[in-house]
């Protein structure tokens, strides 16, 4: 037996934690990109802010786009609901709400994350400290993940956590690809120039997939990287991987509760799209169209899950 509110709290706690690590990686990738390509640094921060869905909010706060403001807005600005500090706050509030469903280890890992980041982000982060702070965010996120995997019962509680994680990750990966695709659009034909290769590698870096891509020994480029991030079922951040797991976690809930829910049909439909196609077909449809549809349907799935398991009223 689990309260609907608790299911919602677990789901959002994990979404927010996933978002904090994703944002840290976006900042890191953006920061490297801007360093190697001084002329395009503004464009780089625009793409980071759009990926995090934070560009409009940023423009309300700042007149010009620059590195210092962008990093600060993404890391610490509390008026930005997606800043690392805001989402870690929100994750901890959800963890407090669902504390009775968490092991002591998980609660303490989340609380520890909040305490450390609150301290690290109390003041503007200098260039010198930025790598350490980003590292800290990544480590804390690994600590929470370790506690979740190492101590939680594999029951509905765990499944709601995983569902939140994979929905957020799918959204994040789809956005990274979509935004970069737009940025790179004029130059897609110029495949092969060193700058473009660097751009595409930034995508891999944002998805923590640069090493694993290198192991594939494939020619870098939009097609290969898109294929990797969308369809490769071995990569834990690919869309296909996210959806295989979402379907599995929803099936676990079905088995535990003895009830099939409407959200499962939506999930199955998206999963089919990701497992019965290849990259040529996706490029044919248009990568942007494919990703936009996926982002929308991913949102729709979230709403349906919320309704099916009575997160609120």
């Amino acid at each position, binding site marked *: *037996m*689990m*309260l*609907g*509110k608790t*299911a919602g709290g677990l789901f959002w706690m994990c979404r927010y934690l996933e978002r904090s690590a994703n944002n840290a990686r976006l900042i890191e990738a953006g920061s490297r990109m801007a360093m190697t390509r001084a002329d395009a640094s503004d464009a780089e921060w625009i793409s980071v802010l759009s990926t995090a869905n934070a560009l409009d909010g940023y423009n309300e706060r700042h007149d010009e786009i620059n590195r210092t403001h962008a990093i600060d807005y993404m890391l610490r600005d509390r008026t930005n609901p997606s800043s690392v500090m805001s989402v870690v706050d929100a994750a901890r*509030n959800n963890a*407090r*709400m669902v*504390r*009775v469903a968490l092991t*002591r280890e998980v*609660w*303490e890992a989340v*609380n*520890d994350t909040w*305490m450390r980041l609150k301290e690290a982000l109390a003041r503007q982060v200098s260039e010198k400290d930025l790598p350490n702070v980003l590292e800290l965010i990544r480590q804390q996120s690994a600590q929470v993940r370790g506690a979740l995997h190492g101590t939680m019962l594999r029951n*509905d509680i765990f499944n709601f956590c995983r569902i939140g994680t994979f929905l957020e990750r799918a959204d994040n990966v789809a956005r990274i690809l979509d935004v970069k695709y737009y940025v790179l659009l004029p130059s897609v034909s110029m495949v092969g120039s060193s700058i473009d290769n660097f751009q595409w590698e930034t995508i891999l870096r944002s998805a923590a997939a640069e090493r694993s891509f290198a192991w594939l020994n494939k020619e870098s480029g939009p097609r290969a990287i898109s294929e990797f991030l969308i369809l490769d079922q071995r990569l834990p951040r690919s869309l296909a991987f996210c959806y295989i797991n979402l379907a599995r976690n929803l099936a676990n809930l079905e088995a535990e*509760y003895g*009830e099939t829910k409407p959200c499962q049909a939506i999930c199955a439909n998206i999963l089919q799209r990701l497992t019965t196609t290849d990259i040529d077909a996706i490029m044919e449809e248009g990568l942007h169209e494919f990703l936009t549809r996926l982002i929308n349907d991913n949102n729709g799935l979230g709403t349906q899950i919320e309704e099916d*398991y*009575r997160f609120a*009223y």
Partner: protein
Amino acid sequence: MPFDEMFGHGEHPRQPYQTYSDWFQSENSRSLRKKAKEAERAFRRTGITFNVYGREEANERLIPFDIVPHILSNREWQKLSEGIEQRVLALNAFLHDIYHRQEILKAGRIPREMISQNAAFEPKMIGVDPPGGIYTHIVGTDIVRTGEDEFYVLEDNARTPSGVSYMLENRETMFEMFPDLFIRHKVCPVSTYPKRLRRSLAACAPSACTDKPVVAVLTPGIHNSAYFEHSFLADEMGAELVEGHDLRVVNGRVAMRTTQGYMPVDVLYRRVDDAYLDPLNFNPDSVLGVPGIMDIYRAGGITIANAPGTGIADDKAIYSYMPDIVEFYTGEKAKLPNVPTWRCSDPDSLAYVLDNLEDLVVKEVHGSGGYGMLVGPAASRKEVAAFRAKLQAKPDGYIAQPTLALSTVPIFTNQGLAPRHVDLRPFVLVSPNGVDITPGGLTRVALKKGSLVVNSSQGGGTKDTWVLES
């Protein structure tokens, strides 16, 4: 000099502190200081924090923890627990009586207007029979001491007493920091409290409950100052932690919204005040409560712990009648005395209080948490004058008590041991099976030298409380 619980009035430790004192002498004070710092880190990590009322930001503050335990001998504890049991039984009998036949008023032992004019009296409870006949399922009786054998009841917290999570976590912290102390001492365990609480609550299940009772804790939410305790107790009891919007009336029962639909709750341990419990029956603006819960309660569909309307029993004006109340319902003299109390509603008492403000403690009848009170000897002339005006404007809103020479227990400071004033709140469970008092409690300690205010909202700290097994 006030009575010190470790050293009495002399230099040598009293018997219950003998072993501890020997141990303390043999410890290195630098390593103790390090331990004290570790304790603070441990509390922050587990998230035992406390939001102070009236601060803008949800400011999470730790209640300072002192490493020197408050120790009671088994004999002292027996004496205390007998007195508390007698008092709590009398409180329940009193509550049943004033919401039914009102014999105590008919007998003239308490003036009628003390009840009828009292904001804490709840007319909606008249004639209601709470499941198991229990009104105060959980009581926190505040005890103060002035000498070797002199204990007083300072307050009967009979609404929703808080602090029990500190009793449990303080002990855990002591176990972690000083395991060797527990080899030298036989200390009565407190960790059984959550199980006892659950058993006690389950024993009060309503008639509508046909299976194993479902228990839930009702909290105002994560921004409440005691939220940590609410989630801690739910967790330790294996109960659900619910907010008002998780509950609604379904088919004549109060039910909680689960991932699989609505499921009835049998016993609700609510940590929400009466006024917010039911917007249909009490404060219509409340978003913390459950519309219609009072109707289900009256029909025997749910147990509410503590029962609505129990506030009348820990009202500070009623407090002054407690010796009469105990005698009226138990036929015995009160085993634990009250602190002498002047009711300012009485003109002679008021005159005395106004003449002696500098020496008295004056409290609001409905106040709590150490707010709105005057500690005469510690107040400035200006504060006394301002309070005098308030008192004259509304005498029946206040009571006054002498400033007792409260006992002290040493705290650990950078300069070594230093005596500070303490009080003690044991936690009492009441069910049809009897009264169950966990040996121990929450010891609150004033951290400022000479201060008599121990409330955590006013800068007080806590100590672990030991009842020795022999």
